[in-house]
């Protein structure tokens, strides 16, 4: 009988003292691996057009983004929806090849044909600007492009 009682009494509680450590570790892991967007927009956040036949961009490291839209600072850059932003500043279409080449330097050679250029342009931009960019992209053989859009409703 005494043996029986001993067993019941000796059941220890699971030690949860290290649980916070585990959870904190998870928390820090997520905080560290979350990457922030590294470019900050000089133009106003472009209002993307909507489309239904869209494809997702798979590998972020192979994507270079070109923004087109209205400048936040009209006094410095002028008005209109046709400002091109490369990296962190307003540029012209002539600087697109240099931008693409600088992106290519960081990528392994066999992956270069897989690189995609994502164009995030405002609805009210003009096609002329886009075509200028496209011609420059063709000059440096950056042939895969993606016109960034939002997902529209299918009907």
């Amino acid at each position, binding site marked *: 009988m005494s043996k029986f009682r001993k067993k019941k009494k000796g059941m220890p509680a699971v030690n*949860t*003292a290290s*649980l*916070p450590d585990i*959870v*904190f570790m*998870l*928390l820090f892991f*997520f*905080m560290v691996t*979350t990457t922030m967007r590294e470019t900050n927009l000089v133009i106003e956040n472009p209002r*993307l*057009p909507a*489309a*239904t*036949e*869209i*494809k*997702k*961009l798979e590998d*972020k490291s192979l*994507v270079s*983004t070109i923004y*087109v839209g209205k400048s936040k600072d009209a006094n410095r850059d002028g008005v209109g929806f046709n400002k091109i932003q490369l990296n962190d500043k307003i540029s012209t279409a002539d600087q697109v090849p240099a931008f693409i080449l600088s992106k290519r330097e960081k990528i392994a050679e066999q992956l270069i044909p897989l690189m*995609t250029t*994502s164009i995030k*342009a*405002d*609805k*009210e*931009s*003009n*096609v*002329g*600007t*886009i*075509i200028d960019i*496209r011609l420059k*992209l*063709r*000059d440096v*053989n950056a*042939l*895969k*492009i*993606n*016109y*960034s*859009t939002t*997902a*529209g409703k299918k009907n």
Partner: protein
Amino acid sequence: MARRENPEINAGSMADIAFLLLIFFLVTTTMNVDSGVSKKLSEKPPIDYVPPVIKEKNIFEVNINRNNELLVEGDRMEIKDLKEAAMAFIDNGGGTGNPDEDGTPGKACDYCKGERSDASSDHPNKAIVSVQSDRGTEYGTYIIVQNELLRAYNELRDRLSRERYGISFEELEESFKDAKKSADLKNRVEQLRRKVEDIKISYPQIISDAEPTS
């Protein structure tokens, strides 16, 4: 004596606090997936390049002017009618297709359901959609037009895929992607790849951008 009375801080709720933080971060982190209309540009032609002569009837001409109005094959059109018109053009199948790479002469389109009129395209692989826009056209309109044209192609591919394989083209591509990822059954991947290629070759997307008017 006083030392013994100093109680331990209860750390039991520490885990709850940390969990709360963790869940907060998990919920507020947005993965913004970039998506959009993909296009492949044509390569830069050599200087002495002579463009091939293409019959007028194999070109579907879409013009967008600076007031975002549409002119299709010489007539004004609303955007909502564009898809139907493009589908009718691509799917016409009035003649024979391009010869194969190995030189066998092109066959008539046996899967087309169009009118087979002599005035429209010969074969889906000969049908070229040419979009010409003004430099002043709004980008939004341009994308809508591109999207409508892609929809026309996708609808035709979908129809053919359902006919031949019993599932929609989207599902076919999806299952091909999944099979590639798991990569356990080599011949299943190969089989699916052939199906996808078959549909894509039957209705190739030939959308070209003509020089803009200014």
